[in-house]
């Protein structure tokens, strides 16, 4: 009985020692749409994210109002008419990755990230290749993928349809630090 308890305690202790989490509250996610008529670029530099390099889980969350556009009117329309930030204030991703990641060894680790993305109240499974880079005790995650606003019930009116690319490019650049 004692032996079993100590074994269990050991297991718990092991589990807790492995659960070193990596977090940030200033990750960057940007999206880009390029058409002949209009270039749209917006950047959110206040993405909160969390990474468990051992269990290979990753999640991030951002406020849609955090996206900054060069043109303020565009930013207003983005929040008011497209993503409806008052109804759906944040977007989230919750998933996992496959591929090697050794947090104790510096280097670049190509991985495949998969999980559920929630935007505009709609949740979809997404999968994208990405790279983790371990350097100076922090882990930087970089990924780029395409996203179709129509998949998330984001309605683009006929009149501006040729000003917005059908698939927007999403770029993720998140610098994780060990959670204290």
């Amino acid at each position, binding site marked *: *009985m004692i032996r*079993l308890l100590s074994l*269990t305690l050991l*297991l*718990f202790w092991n*589990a807790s020692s492995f*659960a070193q989490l990596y977090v940030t*509250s200033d990750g960057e996610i940007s999206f880009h749409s390029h058409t002949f008529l209009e270039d749209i670029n917006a950047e959110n530099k206040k993405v*909160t*994210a*969390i990474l*468990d390099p051992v*269990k290979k*889980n*990753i*999640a*991030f*969350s951002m*406020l849609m*109002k955090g996206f900054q556009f*060069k*043109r*303020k*009117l565009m930013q*207003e*329309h983005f*929040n*008011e*008419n497209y993503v*409806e930030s*008052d*109804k759906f*204030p*944040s977007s*989230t991703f*919750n998933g996992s990755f496959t591929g090697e990641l050794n947090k104790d060894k510096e280097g670049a680790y190509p991985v495949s990230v998969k999980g559920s993305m929630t935007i505009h109240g709609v949740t979809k499974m997404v999968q994208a290749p990405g790279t983790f880079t371990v350097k100076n005790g922090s882990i930087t995650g970089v990924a780029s993928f395409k996203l179709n606003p129509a998949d998330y019930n984001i*309605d683009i*009116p006929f*009149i*501006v349809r040729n*000003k917005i690319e059908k698939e927007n490019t999403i770029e993720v650049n998140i610098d994780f630090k060990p959670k204290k």
Partner: protein
Amino acid sequence: MHGTVFSVILFLFIYSSEAQDSSLLTLLKEQDKPSTSNVSATFKATHIANLQTVESPAKGDLNFIIMHRFGKINDGSYNFFGLDNATLRLGLDYGITDRLAAGIGRSSLEKTFDGYLKYKLLRQTEDGKMPVSVSLLETVSNYTLKFTDKTYLNAKYRTTYVSQILIARKINRSVSLQLAPAMLHFNLVPTSKDNNDVFAATVGGRVKFTKRMSITGEYTYLPSGQINSRDVKNSLSLGWDIETGGHVFQLVFSNSQGMTESQYITRTTGSWGKGDIYFGFNISRNFTLKKK
């Protein structure tokens, strides 16, 4: 006994590890602070119909507005129900900062020039700590129509000042209301029975019925006894706003022909009941001159 304890502990272990997996996002959500940012787009345009809204162009944005009113609908078929006549105001608004805007305008009615400064004093916040947006509007207008019999009318006599406090609240995503008390000062009034300083208050609002369309209305109450040499009606305007990208298109029905503060507040002669209704439109176009 050992078996039971073991399975309970194993269960606890699995359970705790699973809880941890799903809690990654939960942990994040706890970090997300509620937004304290300012409420945006209380109104889609800088005017409801004639009443200026709390909105102004963002820093470095130029807004070009064409305000157009046809003649009165009750002018009859000979004047094609008012469509033969037109009154126009062309305006430019520029955002000096995100809070301060300056504008100039020219109306065909009495060949009037107007200029204004608008300052966003308070802005409604999403967390409700600031319940309203307040903008201060200071307008000066000068009419240049020539009268051969009134050579004494110099620039000073032709000038009017209007100070207006615009108080607006976006009640929900579709309904916004604005209250705008105004103080007008005329350097010269037609007769000694008229006040040089006139008080009036305007209420306006919009109801969005799709993401890009809304019904608007505004009503000006001009307390009686201030202007006595002519019959002045309270201004009532109804509109339909359509937003398409950088344009806002507003269809307007109003008993006011004039489109600047001094004109629609104190020079409205039309009566809705008699069909003195001016149909018209405002078109505004936003240009980003300086990208942030």
